[in-house]
């Protein structure tokens, strides 16, 4: 049963920009990584899911509700990190988080304090003077503080240093254990590889591949069987190259990283 359902979504901006007949589903409790080069349609897809823009054709549903018509109901159990963070510049970080909690109708501060501690953020200063990374952290706290069931994250780790990136990956892993459904676009193959159970690759507004992270890697494994002179050499070879030995024969596999797989899709001809 898919929590996020996109069926035949089309939005043509002209000049090959937009998304075209995009269909995919994200099951409950799944972390879905949405990969694609710049301008592939990741943010356009997310804007549809958020109900910011209306599909030209096709439809998007979250928990059985239409993303455009029932957007405000969906938002009660959804957390969102925008791709381009922009807050009310005139406020301090704390004021903004307090404002958002009240604006959302939250009765308490929720997970705010715990999240601020986790990302070592003191939000007292004016947002205008904050670095990109600090703003990104405020965005993360804003998205998670009401403990939503579903998370839509548009390049959530951009601007974070490697330490904070791994803190974020820990957070995602914990939320996954708590069976949250997470839809995350990214450029960071490491974080997708470590967190996402399923992966969709978008190119030129079309879904180029969609599968479990495991299958996607499996599809791109090349195996070589090598015959060696004797079993002793075969055993040594198998040890050095992590192969499987069968008599004098050793099978080794060259496993592509997700990045290489992605670059393979990215590099394909443009005649899609």
């Amino acid at each position, binding site marked *: 049963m898919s929590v996020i359902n996109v069926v035949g979504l089309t939005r043509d901006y002209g000049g090959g920009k937009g998304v075209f007949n995009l269909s995919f589903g994200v099951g409950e409790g799944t972390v879905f990584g949405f990969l694609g080069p710049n301008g592939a349609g990741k943010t356009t897809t997310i*804007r549809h899911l958020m109900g*910011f823009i209306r599909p030209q054709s096709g439809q998007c549903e979250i928990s059985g509700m239409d993303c455009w018509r029932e957007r*405000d109901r969906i938002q*009660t159990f959804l957390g969102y990190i*925008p791709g381009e963070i922009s*807050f009310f510049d005139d406020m301090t970080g704390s004021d903004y988080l307090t404002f958002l909690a009240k604006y959302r109708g939250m009765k308490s501060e929720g997970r705010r304090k715990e999240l601020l501690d986790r990302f070592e953020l003191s939000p007292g200063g004016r947002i205008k003077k904050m670095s990109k990374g600090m703003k990104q952290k405020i965005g993360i706290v804003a998205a998670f503080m009401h403990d939503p069931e579903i998370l839509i994250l548009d390049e959530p780790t951009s601007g974070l240093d490697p330490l904070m990136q791994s803190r974020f990956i820990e957070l995602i892993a914990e939320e996954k254990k708590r069976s949250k459904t997470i839809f995350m676009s990214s450029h960071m193959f490491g974080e997708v590889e470590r967190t996402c159970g399923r992966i969709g690759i978008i190119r030129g507004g079309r879904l180029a591949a969609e599968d479990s992270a495991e299958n996607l890697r499996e599809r791109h494994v090349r195996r070589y069987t090598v015959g060696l002179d004797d079993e002793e050499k075969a055993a040594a070879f198998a040890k050095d190259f992590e192969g499987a030995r069968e008599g004098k024969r050793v099978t080794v596999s060259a496993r592509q990283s997700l990045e290489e797989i992605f670059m393979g899709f990215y590099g394909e001809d443009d005649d899609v």
Partner: protein
Amino acid sequence: MFKLNHIFNTTLYKREMGGSWRMLLIFAGIIAMYAGVVISMYEPGIEGMLAQLAEAIPELMAAVGMGGAPSDLTGFISSYLYGMLLLVFPMVYTILRANALVARYVDRGSMAGLLAAPVKRRSIALTQAGALATGIIIMIAFITILEAAVSEALFPGELDIGGIIALNSGLLCLHLFIGGICFLCSCIFSDAKHSAGLGAGIPAFMYILLMISNIGGAAENVKYATFFTLYNTEAILAGDPSGAAGAAILLAGAVPLFASGITVFSRKDLHV
């Protein structure tokens, strides 16, 4: 279950009124200074300095609505404040605030934070319209109190309070109408430049037409092309029903302008 926040977000309203206060104080200061000086120039019974100025440069003074032969303090205030100052200054406030309340948030992307919450777009837009209208009402109320206080201090008993209240009720209708135009522009355009351009351009052009028609002669017919003509201070002070009718038309026009702004904002694509 009825909840006020479903149609109007009080948290957002408080934030926006906080933003309006600073600007209202600046405008109140300027208006107080200018209006104080003008009222103090009233000389009962004899031709004052302003009347001499009107004789020296009649076309220019007529263009900004100054002239005639006011016989009492109320008429004097009506001629010298309601031709330009009290039309233009609140208008500038309205243009700036209307643009900041919707279009600028969309342009900068901070609208995303407001949309990613269980708050209907209709409610966001209605709240912003409410904040704009409240600011206009506060400014006109301030002007009324200021005129009464300065007049009573300098020329006790000379001001026709009923007349001033009637004048300012009409002025409120006029500025709510201008507010409606600016708000609609702010909701239509996602680019703050276009919103400000048209939101400022339309009222400014209409005011220029008023100035041209004030010069009289063949140009007088231009008055039929500008909504400022509907605010007829002479008719209001004389108790002529056309004065109240004009103000009523302006107020009646403001309602659909604000309503269409809210509807446009609720239906349009927001690329934030």
